[in-house]
């Protein structure tokens, strides 16, 4: 589950050697936009992400039935779940709800969990990163030790501890995923800020007599937004996968029939033999959505950092 994050944490390194801010803002943005437009991966990613968001937002319009209603639970037996029929495009789920409806509402759940947890992680990570990279000195040391501690525990276990502590709910899953992302955002921002410290423009601003805090918040931080945005997009992919992993460990919403892909996927394992479609669809949904965010994030990064494009 740390997959997507680690990809970026590692590949982000070369990008930071050539930090943003060297070229004038508008010119750089236009160049990036042009690169993005020409990238087929960006289009595919954007298309998937758009479709995902539309489905999530318009779930009640798209889905033919109520989610998690278990309206047809009497048709379920331990060894059989009805497959596709006229009333049910993809058949039923093992709790007697319409599988297609569950998948559609699952998109909504994923979007909410993904966005909220990413925002939380981004916010906390930014605070830590600014403290560390912007102030420096003992604050830097202290913050980085905390980040080290967080990094020294595999993210999954970190998430488990949080989820177990906060109790069993979607909220705890969001917090858990967010906590696991904090050190990544913090490190990314710190590296970006540190690399800007010695740069000419910062020295110039300093020589103009600007206060350090002002330089950090108004000039250096905006210059770091690019990598943060890229990371946030990629973290969304991780979040979708991570929810599934947490479901596997038995955390998440207290209602077993909730429309949530990871939950559906885990639940389907016990019926893999007779009803593989129950595992197939949520698995495909998770993979495609994660793929969409990953493609978009990667293209964004490449657009912002032309060096990697060669």
């Amino acid at each position, binding site marked *: 589950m740390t997959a997507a994050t680690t990809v970026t944490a590692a590949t982000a390194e070369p990008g930071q050697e050539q930090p943003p801010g060297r070229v004038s803002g508008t010119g750089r943005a236009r160049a990036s936009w042009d690169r993005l437009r020409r990238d087929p991966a960006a289009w595919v990613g954007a298309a998937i992400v758009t479709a995902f968001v539309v489905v999530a937002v318009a779930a009640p319009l798209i889905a033919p039935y109520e989610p998690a209603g278990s309206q047809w*639970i009497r048709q379920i037996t331990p060894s059989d779940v009805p497959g596709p029929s006229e009333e049910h495009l993809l058949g039923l789920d093992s*709790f007697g709800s319409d599988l297609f409806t569950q998948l559609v509402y699952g998109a909504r759940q994923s979007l909410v969990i993904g966005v909220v947890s990413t925002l939380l992680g981004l916010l906390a990570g930014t605070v830590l990163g600014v403290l560390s990279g912007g102030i420096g000195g003992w604050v830097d040391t202290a913050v980085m030790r905390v980040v080290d501690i967080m990094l020294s525990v595999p993210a999954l276990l970190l998430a488990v501890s949080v989820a177990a502590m906060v109790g069993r709910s979607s909220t705890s899953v969001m917090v858990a995923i967010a906590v696991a992302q904090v050190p990544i955002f913090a490190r990314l921002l710190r590296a970006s800020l540190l690399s800007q410290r010695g740069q000419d423009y910062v020295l110039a601003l300093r020589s103009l007599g600007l206060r350090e805090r002002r330089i950090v918040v108004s000039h250096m931080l905006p210059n770091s937004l690019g990598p943060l945005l890229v990371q946030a997009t990629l973290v969304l992919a991780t979040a979708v996968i991570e929810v599934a992993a947490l479901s596997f460990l038995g955390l998440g919403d*207290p209602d077993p029939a909730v429309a949530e892909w990871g939950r559906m996927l885990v639940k389907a394992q*016990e*019926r893999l033999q007779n009803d593989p479609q129950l595992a197939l669809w949520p698995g495909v949904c998770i993979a495609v959505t994660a793929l969409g965010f990953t493609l978009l994030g990667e293209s964004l990064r490449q657009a912002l950092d032309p060096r990697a494009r060669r």
Partner: protein
Amino acid sequence: MSWSDLPLRKLVTGVAVAALALTAGCAESQREENDSAEGTGGDTGGTFVFAASSDPATLDPSFASDGETFRVARQMFEGLVGTKPGTAEPAPLLAKSWESSEDGLSYTFELEDGVTFHDGTDFNADAVCANFERWYNRTGLAQSENLSYYYRSLFRGFEQNEGEGLGEPLYKSCEPEDEDTVTINLNRPFAGFVAAMSLPAFSMQSPTAIEKYKGDDIGGTADDPRFSEYASAHPTGTGPFKFGSWERGQQVTLEPYEEYWGDKAKLDKVIVKTISDGTARRQALQNGEIDGYDLVAPADVAGLESEGFQIEQRKPFNILYLGMNQAHPALQDPRVRQAIAHAIDKEALVSGTLPEGTEPATQFMPDTVTGYAEDVPTYEYDPEKAKALLAEAGFPTLEIPFQYPTGVSRPYMPSPEDTFKNISAQLSEVGITVKPEGLKWSPDYLDRIQGTADHGLHLLGWTGDYNDPDNFVGVFFGKPSNEWGFNDPALFEALEDARGLPTVDEQVPAYESINKQIMTMLPGVPLASPVPSLAFAEGVKGYQPSPVQDEVWNSVTVEDEG
């Protein structure tokens, strides 16, 4: 060596060759495995690989209370009393016969002769007394609930009670009459005594070996309990198998005991392999890695059968119920509880979530237990009546928290999530909205249900250990509890009295009336006694399922399928 020195081409070639070799090797190894299987099969009984859901906690069953410990223990140890095959009825084992005194205060056992322990020492009256004294004389840590669960709950106390929760001991003394006759004296009558002796926790162990390997030295300090050498490497009983080896977290290996007094084991070797995941157990069987496993999920039964695997069903000796906590204001009203009972279609629940062959339940024990009453009040499925009762009670709509356990499969509750969902869907049809709360079985769920009053409806049950009604209704309703949230001194007293009756014959009417009393009050809805299933490979023969899991593998053989 640095990377630059690595000739890349060689590396790539190497990988390719390795990949090819691997693929070729796979096919080859399949053949080899089949060959070797043929080699070990044939004339002898072969090797029997059974998958357990966890390691045994210890090899000394007197310190244990869990099924996986007992499963292994049953192969190596025997008690004075066993069970009739396929039932929970007590039957002679190490004791050929027994009789109790009029007052129910003393039991005299006639022992089998010519029985030896695996270390070669004799099993006799002295050995029996040594075992009884060993349990009775436990001190300190050994008295704690997790190490002496069954002794505490059945014999109530030790010679020197330490800590709370212990009472006047039931055990008084043990007298060897002669080499093969022994009398156990009790302080109070206990009709379930003989049946209780069939529990593996009370099996006979070699006093010599216990002394030699410091079996009672569970040692260390209080905060660091450690099992003895005896319990980890030298368990010594009289059973058809003797201990081979124990690779923790992996497997226990047993070998046949050549001097066994009864039907000698046909197998050459028994391996109890630990596979904690249920799906993984099924797949290991399908792939031929194991020969059998327990706790087959209801969803897998039909599939495995159609693939040619054998499904053995135990006669259910358990009960699954829906608990209704009377500390919840709405559930205090008997009409609401009756409405819930009428709202549940047990037939649909059984066919939808429980194994085939399961029968709906009418009371808090299966029909095989002494004291089961034919004529208890019943609450047939009638949603209209349920709605009417709710309206009468002033709850035309009602929201109730419903706790259910996750990450667990018990013999009486194979798929709690499905059962929970099925019931809550039925309840919603009569206007009851369920507020779901899934909790990890252990400790969260049990903590909440049994440790606090903060819960509404819940799923729980029990698998009986031996044929004793007190083991069901006594365990459930014997005293005020957080689980049920009611206080009914009359019921508690009736249960206490029934428990103390000296003979089973006298207990029957007492427990029948208690069952009626309980079903009138309706503290919960007994749902069903799910049929527990075992699955075996085609070549496994001679496995006898037992309702109380008294399954000894001396009659098992594994034939080659090839």
